[in-house]
């Protein structure tokens, strides 16, 4: 498969802070990639570097073989960014026609209109007077105005209601089926899991996992066995049980992280350890992801090493 984006040892420093720390990856034509991670993980910075809007401090990025800023690239990409408000004083129709005029082979006007989902009377409204959700849909149409080969979305569904979200992703999947490469950032694991064919997981400026959603999920969702803590049980001893990856004491309970809960329970009973109030947790995705966010990667590092 043809490589459309390549990042080679990219680092981006803002003053003293390292936003992106020495990452390398490639994206192929036709992929549907989610860049997933908690806030401040370096997702948007990476996306903006792919678009050539900010320059990396170190390393090299190519977009379809050229520097991202190359004019040929501008004609073949489309993007929806965060915190871009609509141009003032132009109507929806005027903005769409203006954007179509920039590109050699624009998408049909009617098709863009249907993507915005706006009613006939709304098309004559000033673009900056639309509601928040309508503006997002117009931004989506503007991103597609040039019928791009690669589409970038930075946190696209923030501010969309459920039905708008569904419509948005349906259109994105259709675009992807037609061979367009789609790259989006999100901090919703569920969204990445539902839509993307590949997840690049970011934390603290690094890529900590990269693969199909199912593999990422497995890495993120270790299960655990927990019981009420008491003075007779030593945590060191528990750590020697086979399959236990980590022992944590929290809120008066002891948690044994493992991906083989049955075997761990068997061993506890075999050793006749006196435990009370046993619980088995199968890590739910959101929970696991939240854990990742809170602990700043500690959890993932331990469970990823074990996989």
């Amino acid at each position, binding site marked *: 498969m043809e490589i459309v984006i390549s990042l080679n040892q990219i680092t981006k420093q803002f003053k003293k802070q390292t936003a992106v720390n020495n990452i390398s990856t490639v994206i192929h034509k036709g992929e549907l990639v989610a860049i997933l991670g908690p806030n401040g993980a370096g997702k948007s910075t990476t996306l903006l570097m792919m*678009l050539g*809007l*900010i320059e990396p401090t170190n390393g090299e990025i190519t977009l379809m073989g050229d520097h991202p800023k190359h*004019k040929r690239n*501008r*004609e073949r*990409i*489309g*993007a929806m*960014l965060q*915190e*871009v*408000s609509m*141009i*003032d*004083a*132009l109507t929806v129709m*005027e903005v769409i*026609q*203006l*954007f*179509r*005029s*920039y*590109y*050699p082979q624009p998408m049909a006007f009617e098709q863009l209109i249907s993507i915005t989902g706006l009613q006939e009377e709304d098309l004559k409204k000033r673009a900056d007077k639309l509601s928040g959700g309508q503006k997002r849909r117009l931004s989506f149409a503007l991103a597609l105005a*040039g019928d791009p080969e690669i589409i970038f979305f930075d946190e696209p569904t923030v501010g969309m209601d459920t039905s708008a979200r569904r419509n948005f992703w349906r259109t994105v999947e259709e675009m992807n089926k037609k061979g367009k490469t789609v790259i989006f950032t999100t901090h919703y694991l569920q969204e990445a899991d539902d839509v993307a064919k590949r997840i690049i997981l970011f934390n603290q400026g690094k890529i900590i996992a990269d693969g199909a959603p199912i593999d990422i999920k497995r890495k993120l969702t270790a299960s655990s066995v927990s019981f009420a803590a008491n003075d007779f049980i030593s945590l060191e001893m528990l750590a020697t049980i086979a399959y236990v990856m980590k022992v944590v004491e929290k809120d008066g309970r002891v948690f044994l992280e493992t991906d083989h809960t049955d075997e761990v329970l068997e061993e506890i009973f075999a050793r006749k350890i006196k435990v009370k109030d046993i619980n088995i947790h199968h890590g739910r995705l959101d929970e696991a992801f939240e854990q990742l966010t809170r602990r700043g990667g500690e959890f993932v590092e331990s469970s990823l090493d074990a996989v």
Partner: protein
Amino acid sequence: MNPVWMQCKAEILRIFRNPYFVFWSLFMPILFYFLFTNVFNVGMGDEWHAHFLMSVTCFSVMGSAIMTLGIRLVEERTKGWSMFMRLTPLSDGAYFFAKMVGQTMIHIFSIIIIFTVGSFINNVTLTISQWLLCGMWILLGSFPFLALGTLVGLMKKVDTASGVSNVIYMGLAILGGMWMPMEIMPKFIQSIAQWIPSFHFGSGAWEMVRGNAPSLVNISVLIGYLIVFVVLSIYIRRKQEVVV
């Protein structure tokens, strides 16, 4: 559909639909003109009527060059629009060119409206060539102020930009003799005015309504300011880009 032409059209539409432009660049100068020639200052004669008509036209065009352009540039940057535009195939140059074309069209429009209304209010009679030459002078003389507008456009916040540009605008108008004739100003203001671009901007037009040509000093001071503002504007812009 030519993108540059579409962009020019969009820029012109945007300025016309801006209520501040209509108020500050058309309504206010005309109101000033009416007040200072018919209400407060009767009996100054035809020469004063023609002179002051040039003053308010310069005042209008100067204002839209500094304020409309400058504040809009800041707005577009703070709202993320300029960044978004950099993703489209439309080059920075074409974007800037369209802005300048838009401004120039608006200036032509303002000049025609104010000249027309002014000549009706006071029956100002100039020859066709005088009207045309004055119009041309004001149009070309607005370039240093457009460059000043791009300087204002480099400011970080809309509030600062509109505050600062208002002060500059009013200062230039008063020191340039656009509100009151230079002759009745105190001596020290008269000597400052010799260094102020707005005075030379007005001066060229005032000479022409009296049948003279703009002086070489008028022309060279305006060109000098144009160069200084353009160089400064490019220099600061480069510096800002490096920080990002």
